[in-house]
């Protein structure tokens, strides 16, 4: 079947999430013609996620139709090369989205920046501890950008997503009430910080007694009514929970639907095409220029959309898979270490300690939108890692995310899994516990990577992406140390009992952990270890930009979304330069 070939446009953007929406807005408002292709359905933020229907845990968390439809497309997974990868048949450890607005439509609103250290992790670790301190099979890398390069773009993202917080470091001056360990900010957050909950106040007292500095973690759920950089209005958050997995009924959580698409829809040179599944990026006979993309439209027709510039702005997995399906870049080969596409896949480490009380009762259902009180002493490289014997770190916090009745119950260790004793324990402790979360970094390793599966296919007959991934020793050592510190905080809270989680030695794809899958098409300054340059421009195909979590060389502690949004702003500026002068980059 020959594809229908459409009229060429300036830019075709694949995906309509954080990257796709911001990229489209920036380029369309600069006068370029932009077509955005999205595999998922379109929703109307004004009518489709209203009260009371959004307050349905079963519908949105267990049976969601805004997560990726695995019946059509999933990935396969194994812990190591000796195993046969098998398909992820049901949603478990992570939940990529499938709708206009992408995965960020149902994100939790954790809008932290990374630290300056994170972008130069290889150089700084090498300088402080020597190269031999880096685990032998760890592909630790710099990003090719520094804090001074990208700080203005974090600022831009925060003005789009209305991030609320309190600066802890304004142009190098430490500010009371903020995070003293953050990178220097050029100005204050656009919105004020969240107010501290009862749990947050107890946590703040406990960590202060241990010598740490508590602060309210930044959030993308509005802390006041806010009109953003694109002149879109968002309303103050009600703190009614139902955030992560859900689309906000109030439109109070910034996401592509609430913060960008209303403005984007008014751009005359922009066109959104939902229900369009991109199959590949097309290149010319030299292999060095992209000519556009081929996709399946809602009626099942194969369509070719020519474009002068192609932007892959989809989820980490889709960006990497489209490169592999298109034959762009050299696929990574773990045995030789050669090749780059699929190299440096990484995830997010984490754990938690629960404190159970018999003399305190909380309101765990009031909250959401990242109402949290945090510490950053264990993040980055603040504490000398030499005697500790690991690299990486974490923030810790107590968050009131809106405990829902199916998944939000916690019981003390030793409680039976079901039966009368279990019932008594959930009745006693649903409102009488608080959790301290460890949100930790995850390094990239030679044996952790993405490639195409040799056996399993998607609904279009194309190979599924294959993930080969397991936890590594460095990160497990780090988690042991962080858990011990977290237990000290738990003890300082003077509850009646402590509990904890143990994920085990091997990564498993069941049980929700984090939708922070990163890497596989990483940015950097060396084409032998990166897929894109520091402007997110393909080393191989100069008019192709691959933007998103896929560009992270390894995963810092802080949660990826603000950095993904920042990279979209940064790459959009680079593309505007590229349009003016195609030789300007690299």
């Amino acid at each position, binding site marked *: 079947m020959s594809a229908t070939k459409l009229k060429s446009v300036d830019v075709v953007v694949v995906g309509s999430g954080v990257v796709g929406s911001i990229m489209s807005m920036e380029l369309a408002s600069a006068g370029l013609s932009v077509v955005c292709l999205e595999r998922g359905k379109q929703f109307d933020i004004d009518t489709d996620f209203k009260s009371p229907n959004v307050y349905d845990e079963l519908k949105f968390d267990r049976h969601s139709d805004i997560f990726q439809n695995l019946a059509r497309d999933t990935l396969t997974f194994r812990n190591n090369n000796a195993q046969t990868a098998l398909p992820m048949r049901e949603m478990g450890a992570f939940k990529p989205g499938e709708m206009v607005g992408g995965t960020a439509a149902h994100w939790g609103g954790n809008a932290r920046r990374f630290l300056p250290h994170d972008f130069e992790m290889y150089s700084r670790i090498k300088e402080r501890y020597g190269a031999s301190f880096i685990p032998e099979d760890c592909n630790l890398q710099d990003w090719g950008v520094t804090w001074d390069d990208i700080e203005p773009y974090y600022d831009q993202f925060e003005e789009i997503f209305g991030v609320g917080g309190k600066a802890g470091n304004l142009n190098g001056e430490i500010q009371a009430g903020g995070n003293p360990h953050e990178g220097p900010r050029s100005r204050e957050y656009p919105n004020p910080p969240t107010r501290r909950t009862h749990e947050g106040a107890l946590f703040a007292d406990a960590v202060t007694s241990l010598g740490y500095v508590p602060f309210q973690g930044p959030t993308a759920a509005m802390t006041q009514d806010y009109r953003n950089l694109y002149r879109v209005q968002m309303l103050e958050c009600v703190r009614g929970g139902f955030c992560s997995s859900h689309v906000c009924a109030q439109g109070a959580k910034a996401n592509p639907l609430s913060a960008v698409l209303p403005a984007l829809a008014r751009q005359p040179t922009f066109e959104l095409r939902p229900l369009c599944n991109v199959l590949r990026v097309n290149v010319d006979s030299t292999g060095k220029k992209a000519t556009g993309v081929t996709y399946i439209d809602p009626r099942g027709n194969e369509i070719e959309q020519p474009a002068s510039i192609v932007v892959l702005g989809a989820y980490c997995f889709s960006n990497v898979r489209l490169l592999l399906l298109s034959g762009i870049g050299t696929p990574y080969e773990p045995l030789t270490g050669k090749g780059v596409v699929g190299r440096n896949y990484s995830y997010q480490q984490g754990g938690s300690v629960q404190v159970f009380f018999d003399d305190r009762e909380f309101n765990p259902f009031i909250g959401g939108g990242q109402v949290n009180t945090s510490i950053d002493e264990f993040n980055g490289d603040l504490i000398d890692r030499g005697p500790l014997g690991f690299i990486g770190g974490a923030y810790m916090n107590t968050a009131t995310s809106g405990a829902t009745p199916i998944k939000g119950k916690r019981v003390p260790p030793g409680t039976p899994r079901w039966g009368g004793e279990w019932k008594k324990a959930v009745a006693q402790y649903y409102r009488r516990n608080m959790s301290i979360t460890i949100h930790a970094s995850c390094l990239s390793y030679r044996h952790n990577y993405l490639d195409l599966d040799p056996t399993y296919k998607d609904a279009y007959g194309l190979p599924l992406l294959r993930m080969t991934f397991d936890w590594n020793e460095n990160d497990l050592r780090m988690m042991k140390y962080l858990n011990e510190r977290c237990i000290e905080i738990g003890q300082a809270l003077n509850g009646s009992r402590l509990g904890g989680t143990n994920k085990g030695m091997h990564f498993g794809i*069941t049980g929700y952990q984090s939708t922070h899958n990163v890497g596989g098409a990483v940015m950097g300054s060396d084409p032998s270890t990166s897929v894109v340059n520091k402007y997110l421009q393909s080393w191989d195909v100069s008019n192709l930009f691959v933007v998103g979590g896929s560009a992270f060389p390894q995963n810092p502690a802080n949660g990826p979304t603000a950095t993904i949004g920042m990279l979209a702003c940064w790459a959009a500026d680079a593309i505007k330069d590229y349009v003016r002068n195609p030789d300007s980059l690299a």
Partner: protein
Amino acid sequence: MLDHIITPKWGTEEMTLSDNPIGASYLYLLEPEVRFLEAAVEHLIPTDELGPGARDVGVVVYIDRQLAGSWGVHGRQYRGGPWLEGTPQQGYQSRFTPQEVYRIAIREINQHCRAEFDRPFAQLAGDRQLRLLEQLEKDEIALPSLPSKLFFDLLWRNTEEGYFADPLYGGNRDKVGWKLLGFPGVPSGQYRELVTSSEPYHAEPVSVLDVQTGKVPVDAEGLPKHVIIKHNSNGES
């Protein structure tokens, strides 16, 4: 230890269950399966001094509705072969859908019960049923067609969902599960003023079903006004 829990005592006039408009009608489950599940879920979340158990709040109706819907046939799950057993880390790899797991497992467990004890599961003494559930959970009963733990884990997951999901789905009748926890359901617009409060907030829970059927009025934001449950310093209502 539990005297401060605000759940009224089960069996008193204020805590009898209302008529369920959905009733005990079944779309997928067969009669012996209903009997089996009514007995089994009552052990998983039993009736006690805190309130009704899973059987009486409609968990079996909930399971039936789930099996009859798209989840019951794994409508959004990857269903392509080959089907290999895999490691625990690789997750669900059975070629059976939830509909098939329930149908096959209940038949085979009842066959096991008849062979060992001359009766189907539902007609065994309570302590015998309890012991069998513990064995199923530990994979100690060898069923011909599937691991007994696969069935047990699915049953427990659905029982917990049915007890705590919105009553919209046929379980959690009269919001019994939410009253047990002290979960108020659909949030109130007052929450933003209460976020810093250290006072325990107790309200009559409001469900999606309550709002959809007009039983509870809502404000301009579409949020219900909560009816606060007063309680003294001991936490008693």
